[in-house]
């Protein structure tokens, strides 16, 4: 336990001091990895722990991003940058979850996908949300003595939030609540027979995951300074799903690792060849075929064992 704690602390410190050693581009890559890592971890809470595979998780990423954009343009404080996006994403997750958790398996996948596409359709057509072009020129958060317009302060703010998100999710999956989720994943009827209000647990997991995804969306808006309807596209959820799988489902560290692998692969391959989508696609196909436990599974030498 102690070596792991030290390793994690070293990782956080390493990420925090990274800008001292690396140039602008690697730092931007790390920041993207952190944001997508938060998003992927939140999806893994649903997938890896509660067994709910969602292709609509981008709905909460997008809601967080849009609410942050609108609010930050009014006033760049903590409420705009974090609280409002998180609350809005939680509310959206409550509404979508209320309908979606009633079904399971493929129906759940399709229903969540359709809900996120609804957001896409609305933002694509509503003029005051910028329609196709989205919202641009969004300022970063400036509060609590932070001026995130400063690159270094923004970086530390991101590293800090990623660490907090990881810690919160880690506490959640290790709590009794997390064990109930795993129980539901393993055998839902049995958990129901044991007297657990299964749907309430699933809905709560859905809302927590949605809230964290909303924070990731807000951070993404602050990183790039804009948000477009594409954030809602079902392929955005698909990419997060791939990150979770690359890393290995049911391991939060794996999601972060998967996000890193995805973004590094994308940037590495795209710097050598225009054909990065082809290579990315091929990599995923081969990964699913030959490394079903993901990177973490392969590292642990447990390839082939699936829950």
């Amino acid at each position, binding site marked *: 336990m102690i070596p792991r704690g030290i390793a994690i602390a070293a990782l956080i410190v390493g990420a925090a001091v990274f800008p001292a050693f690396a140039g602008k581009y690697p730092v931007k890559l790390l920041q993207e990895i952190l944001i997508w890592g938060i998003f992927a971890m939140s999806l893994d809470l649903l997938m890896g722990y509660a067994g709910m595979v969602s292709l609509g998780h981008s709905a909460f990423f997008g809601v967080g991003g849009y609410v942050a954009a609108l609010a930050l343009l009014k006033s760049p404080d903590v409420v705009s940058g974090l609280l409002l996006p998180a609350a809005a994403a939680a509310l959206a997750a409550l509404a979508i979850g209320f309908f979606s958790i009633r079904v399971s398996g*493929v129906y759940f996948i399709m*229903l969540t996908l*359709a809900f996120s596409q609804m957001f896409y359709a*609305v933002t694509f057509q509503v003029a005051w949300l910028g329609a196709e072009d989205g919202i641009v020129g969004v300022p970063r958060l400036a509060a609590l003595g932070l001026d995130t317009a400063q690159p270094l302060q923004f970086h530390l703010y991101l590293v800090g939030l990623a660490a907090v998100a990881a810690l919160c999710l880690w506490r959640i999956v290790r709590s009794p609540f997390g064990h109930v989720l795993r129980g539901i994943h393993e055998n839902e009827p049995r958990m129901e027979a044991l007297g657990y209000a299964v749907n309430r647990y699933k809905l709560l997991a859905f809302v927590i995951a949605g809230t964290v995804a909303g924070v990731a969306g807000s951070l993404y808006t602050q990183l790039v300074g804009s948000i477009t309807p594409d954030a809602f596209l079902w392929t955005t959820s698909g990419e997060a799903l791939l990150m979770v799988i690359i890393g290995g489902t049911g391991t939060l560290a794996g999601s972060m690792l998967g996000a890193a692998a995805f973004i590094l692969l994308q940037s590495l391959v795209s710097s050598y060849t225009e054909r990065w*989508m082809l290579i*990315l696609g091929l990599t995923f196909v081969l990964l*699913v075929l030959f490394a*079903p436990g993901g990177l973490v599974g392969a590292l642990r030498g447990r390839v082939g064992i699936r829950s």
Partner: protein
Amino acid sequence: MPFVLDLFAQALNGLSYGVLLFLLSVGLTLIFGMLDVVNLAHGSFYMLGAYAGLTLIAATGNFWLALAAAPLVVGMIGVVIERSCLRPLYWRGPLDQVLLTFGLIYLFEDLVKWIWGGRIRSIPPPDLFSGSVTLWGATVPSYRMFVIAFGLVMAVVLWLLIERTRLGAIIRAGVFDSEMAAGMGINVDRVFTGVFAFGAGLAGLSGVIAGPIQSAQPPMGATILVPALIVVVVGGLGSLKGSLVGSLIIGQAETFGKAWLPGASMLIIYLVMALVLLLRPQGLFGRALK
């Protein structure tokens, strides 16, 4: 009566889009029903069909030849994909299949960009249907009338094939209970490959058909997948009849939405789906949920 005319013209537009969706979704629903695979790459087969058609027309100058050959090409690709990628995954959960077919979307989209370039290409309609016809005062492109007729004929042919032939009986048995079918001595492996290739071929066929109306572009595969999935969900997973009825409903909803409620047109098909699912969670013709 311009209003009635408009109504009529829109209904024909909706019908031609609907039969296109039917050709696409019937493969998706059969593959799901039989193989238990949600093939996210189904739209990619549609795209491949459009591009194969484009090339065949450029090479031969004959639309009809392309219409016949492109589905065969896409069907062959389907055979390769089923044998090499999906077969090892049948015993695993649905997640791996979702991910693998998602990876295929990237792969095919980029492959198409590589071979044909990224710009929008239009497929010329065949000479026979390049004009327009006037029906009770409404002017409609004659190609759309051909699409409607072709789609409806295909619906009848598919219905006969699946409901009235031995092959259809095998497919229905497989959709209903593939273990039982295997127990009856049916070579389920070969039927699986066949159904997948058949579904892929139908998607390819709809890609060629759609070419003169919607043109060919690399993202078309990922874009068309969502309405096709909605059709399958509305109609009921694994149901041929559901696929037809769902396609006609979604085709009309989308077309009328675009014409009458342009501000909310993209939302309408989702609202239709939500409404159906609220009333019948298993879809209009789906089997009851477990």
